[in-house]
């Protein structure tokens, strides 16, 4: 027993002192959380900075009204919009050309062109057209175009309401279902993902790296010249990894709370259970990689091979609800998917897309599979 604790303690000390592990293990997840949380938090709150231009060539009042309404709406909508209203009824061609160039060259994200017959047509036929110029495929431009498009429809609606056509308004309610949280912010969704990612990287990279290097460098030989057995060593190592992982999770939670005000209800049986299961599953994978790799480079190659597909196709960062069918089975077989769903579900952030038994069974299968194979193939010393 004291051997286990001593090994665990050494493991923690080394992890805290080694420069490379210091960065990848401790700092990187926090950085990732900070970056993604900030970026997508802004998207959520609409704090994206967009540049638009409104080119109004309508001599009548309605074009003017449209432009002013947009101004008022944009100010109140909480978006960071930079827009310019260009008016020149005398030279509509010229104005439109300028606006078009601005969009083509990327100076603005989108442009709204109000033609000269806007008011006239609207009075006469009750129908008028505008054009929205943008660059399709570019995220900012598409967003700007959507905003302009939506605004135009809203304006149309209030126009009709003003005319009395839309007497009765429709009651519309937007309601969120699933999970228990009141409102889920992206950071709240992200934090469990980053926690799982940190545990995953730890298990997949750190574990085999330490073990295989220790074997290659001859550190393990010295251990096994003493009464220490291989299984004790691995248990001690696992214990040490458990402590460092716990500290890591604590740091991420603290950062999430301090920087973003996120408080996750972690003190639940389900949540802690999923955390523990995740830790064990990833550790198992790490042991398996250690067992299958004779050199450090082979271990890292194997880990990298497995890493990215599992992470991206596991819904850690984005809910991958719309994968083509070919990849859906990958998702269903991926332990990360189930652990992420189960973990987030237990935190009340969503309703898991898979039933409970699947969320528990798939990781457990991976865990037992890896441990079994690892036990068969692991060679901590050259006993030959």
């Amino acid at each position: 027993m004291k051997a286990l604790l001593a090994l665990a303690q050494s493991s923690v000390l080394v992890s805290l002192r080694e420069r490379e592990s210091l960065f990848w293990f401790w700092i990187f997840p926090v950085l990732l959380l900070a970056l993604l949380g900030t970026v997508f938090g802004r998207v959520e709150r609409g704090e994206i900075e967009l540049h638009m231009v409104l080119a109004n060539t309508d001599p009548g009042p309605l074009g003017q009204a449209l432009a002013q309404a947009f101004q008022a709406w944009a100010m109140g909508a909480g978006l960071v919009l930079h827009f310019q209203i260009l008016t020149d009824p005398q030279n509509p061609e010229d104005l439109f050309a300028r606006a078009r160039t601005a969009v083509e060259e990327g100076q603005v994200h989108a442009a709204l062109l109000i033609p000269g017959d806007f008011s006239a047509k609207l009075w006469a036929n009750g129908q008028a057209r505008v054009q929205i110029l943008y660059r399709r495929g570019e995220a900012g431009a598409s967003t700007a175009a959507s905003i302009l498009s939506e605004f135009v429809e809203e304006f149309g609606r209030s126009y009709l309401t003003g005319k009395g056509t839309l007497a009765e308004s429709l009651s519309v309610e937007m309601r969120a279902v699933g999970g228990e949280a009141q409102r889920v912010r992206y950071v709240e969704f992200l934090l469990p993902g980053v926690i799982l990612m940190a545990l995953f990287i730890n298990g997949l990279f750190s574990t085999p790296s330490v073990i295989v290097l220790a074997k290659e460098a001859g550190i393990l030989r010295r251990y096994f010249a003493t009464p220490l057995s291989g299984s004790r060593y691995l248990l001690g190592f696992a214990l040490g990894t458990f402590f460092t992982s716990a500290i890591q999770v604590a740091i991420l939670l603290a950062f999430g709370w301090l920087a973003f005000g996120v408080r996750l209800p972690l003190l639940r049986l389900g949540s802690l259970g999923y955390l523990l299961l995740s830790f064990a599953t990833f550790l198992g994978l790490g042991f398996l990689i250690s067992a299958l790799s004779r050199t450090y480079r082979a271990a890292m190659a194997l880990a990298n091979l497995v890493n990215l597909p599992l992470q991206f196709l596991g819904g850690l960062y984005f809910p991958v609800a719309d994968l083509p069918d070919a990849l859906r089975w990958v998702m269903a077989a991926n332990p990360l998917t189930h652990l992420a769903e189960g973990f987030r579900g237990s935190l009340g952030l969503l309703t898991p897309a898979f039933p409970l038994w699947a969320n528990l069974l798939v990781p457990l299968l991976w865990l037992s599979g890896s441990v079994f194979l690892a036990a068969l193939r692991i060679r901590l010393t050259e006993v030959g």
Partner: protein
Amino acid sequence: MRAFLSVLRAQFTLFFRDRLDLFFTLVFPLTFVFLFGFLWGSPGRAVRVGFYSTAPVDLISQVLADFPELAVRDFPSAQDLENAVARRIVDFGIVWDGSSLVFLFDRGRVQDNVGFEGQARRIARSLELRRAGATAPIQAEKLHVGKLQAATWFHYIVPGLMAMALIQAGVFAVAGRMASMRERGVLRRMLATPLPGWALLLGVGSVRLSVGFLSAGLTLLGALTVFGLAFSLHPGWLFFYAVVSSLGAMGLGALVSAVARKPGSAAAAGMILVQAMLFLSGIYIPFEFLPPALRLVGRALPAHHMAQGMRAALGVIEGTSASVCAGLGFGAFGLSALLLFGRALVRPERGWPGDRYHLRRTPRGPSRP
């Protein structure tokens, strides 16, 4: 000349024999292409909408028919619909009781919901109009004025990935390969021969550059063949940006090698640098979505400009003089950095800081790498 050619040949052979190296430089970018392609490259799939109504549906059916991008599915009860939304079997749900609309969204789909809510508002407006027997007074015609007709976000990503492949290859050509050669004593042994230092540098550099080109090329090929993307290639600009990206990246690698004390940490530092650039250059995350401070940083990064240059070279956006200047600047920086630090790189005896570590290796047993 002969020396240079033999170095070239040896390095190429080494590269193709080293399967791990091969994997990382070639397969890795491809993995990204496929990953992103599947996530964002497929033509928009239908939005799945669940529907439940307690009132006659003709009106709302007509409305929904106006939106061909929706795939509507009926549900027998409100509860069933809620479950379907919560489990993401459908993207969102509509409940209609004849006079009010309730839209149901999954709490967890924080990002997608932005789009779905917009969709919901359009449906609501359309329903309102139909009920009043009116039509939308203002038609907004969206016109794409960008260079490439069928552009999608994936079209923007691919050139960015190519730029990254080139930069990555360039940085690791120096910070990785050269540094490890120095560490393993291979460099010292090679320099004991009459081989001139510049030939070695040039040889290794050429191979890694070709690797970078290959990597970027495969990325493009993957995008073209698997996802059927169409670009309008400008070979001249493509070559230009490929060369300056690689040169500049090698300069960065030289810089990193000079600063990093241990040979191993040069590669690690290089990796961190490359990853950081990836995130901040508008390649994965659209520029507009970054906070202003980070956008400022991103704009200063060469990766951003090289990605823009690549986009122009592939006909996705208009080329700008800013990109060209940035390219020239980056290339010039790379060249000068290489010249400056290259001398130090290929002369390990002259007190290169990294060798303090190397020389201290004791004869007793293998030390930790």
